[in-house]
């Protein structure tokens, strides 16, 4: 069972919810938390666990070999990202623009663009009791988040069975990295806040997950600020509001100390329990369908 925590707007509480939810679930069963915001992972700030595995992650990019090249320009014509350019008598490759699709390499008539490994980031796996925490981080200067997100999900799939609850802390926004982080999810939780900004970006996120045909629900964080426009929107669109988390100074203080919230703040514990029950419900429905 894969649950992606996404938002549209940044700073609404994806990591807060992911870390608290995963830690709560891990009190009673095996749970995986994976931080897929590989450009700026921060779930690790709240998880105390032991590092058990570390590996470098690579992407494949073409490297020009001059000797056989006939300068036909086919590589440049097939690249959608301007990562390969023919400049006079040479072929220039821009590794940061390359999406690793192999088109230039495979379609080169003289095999002059063999694919070579390039390190793009690092994956770390931590464990504390039932909680497994998998975090990937891009190296400085690397622009492409998607290949690392894809490989991180593959690592989680390879190491944990279908029956394990997997929580994916997704990047903000609605662009490619978010699509990659949520596309395989069985359910997406969209965290928002009851403000005009929150509503604006929630709508974009809702359109995105609808297009991907993934079931989803909304959690309203910092409930009590702003206005009721998010609630009205969800009601009009028949979108489930799974729970709300109140706006509370104590939450901000505890968060700023890098501590989990639910052990000491009852309103957060209540919210986490209701989300967990909601997930269990979907999970048993899903298992019912497969049987």
């Amino acid at each position, binding site marked *: 069972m894969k649950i992606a925590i996404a938002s549209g707007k940044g700073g609404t509480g994806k990591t807060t919810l992911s870390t608290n939810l995963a830690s709560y679930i891990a009190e009673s069963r095996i749970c995986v938390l994976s931080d897929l915001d590989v450009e700026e992972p921060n779930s690790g700030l709240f998880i105390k666990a032991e590092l058990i595995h570390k590996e470098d992650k690579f992407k494949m990019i073409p490297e020009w070999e001059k000797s056989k090249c006939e300068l036909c320009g086919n590589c440049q014509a097939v690249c959608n*990202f301007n990562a390969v350019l023919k400049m006079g008598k040479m072929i220039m490759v821009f590794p940061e*623009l390359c999406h690793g699709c192999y088109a230039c390499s495979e379609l080169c008539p003289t095999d002059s663009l063999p694919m070579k490994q390039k390190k793009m980031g690092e994956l770390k796996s931590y464990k504390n009791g039932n909680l497994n925490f998998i975090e990937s981080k891009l190296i400085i200067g690397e622009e492409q988040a998607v290949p690392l997100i894809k490989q991180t999900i593959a690592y989680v799939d390879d190491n944990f069975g279908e029956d394990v609850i997997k929580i994916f802390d997704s990047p903000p926004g609605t662009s490619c990295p978010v699509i990659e982080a949520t596309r395989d999810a069985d359910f997406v939780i969209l965290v928002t806040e009851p403000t005009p900004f929150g509503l604006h970006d929630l709508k974009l996120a809702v359109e995105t997950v609808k297009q991907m045909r993934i079931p989803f629900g909304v959690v309203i964080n910092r409930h009590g600020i702003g206005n009721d426009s998010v609630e009205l929107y969800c009601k009009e669109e028949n979108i489930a509001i799974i729970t709300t988390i109140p706006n509370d100074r104590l939450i901000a203080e505890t968060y700023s100390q890098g501590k989990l919230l639910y052990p000491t703040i009852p309103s957060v514990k209540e919210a986490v329990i209701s989300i967990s029950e909601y997930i269990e419900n979907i999970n048993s429905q899903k298992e019912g369908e497969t049987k």
Partner: protein
Amino acid sequence: MKIVFTAKGTDMDAAMDPRFGRTEYFVIFDEDSKSVDSFDNRAIEGEAHGAGPKTAQKLGELGAEVLITGNGPGGNAATVLKTMGTEVLVGAGDMTVTEAYDAYKAGSLKKV
């Protein structure tokens, strides 16, 4: 010598476009023949990635020896321009093309 300006229009009175990769037009001034030409670069809007190197490549095709722009090219475009040996001058983003040319002649633009 061919001097190319990133511009928001097609003649010497046009305002400079401070952007390089996504400039709307190039104004091309040939110092020898004193002729003014332009290139419409607006198709670059359709490129989600790699606008810089693509525009730099176009500059090479136009035979530019000097580029005068505003903010300056990014890393990938700069690599292409360096390979071509194009002289790059920046800081003319708020001028018209004529003013940028005068500033270039006066030596008051920054070389990169």
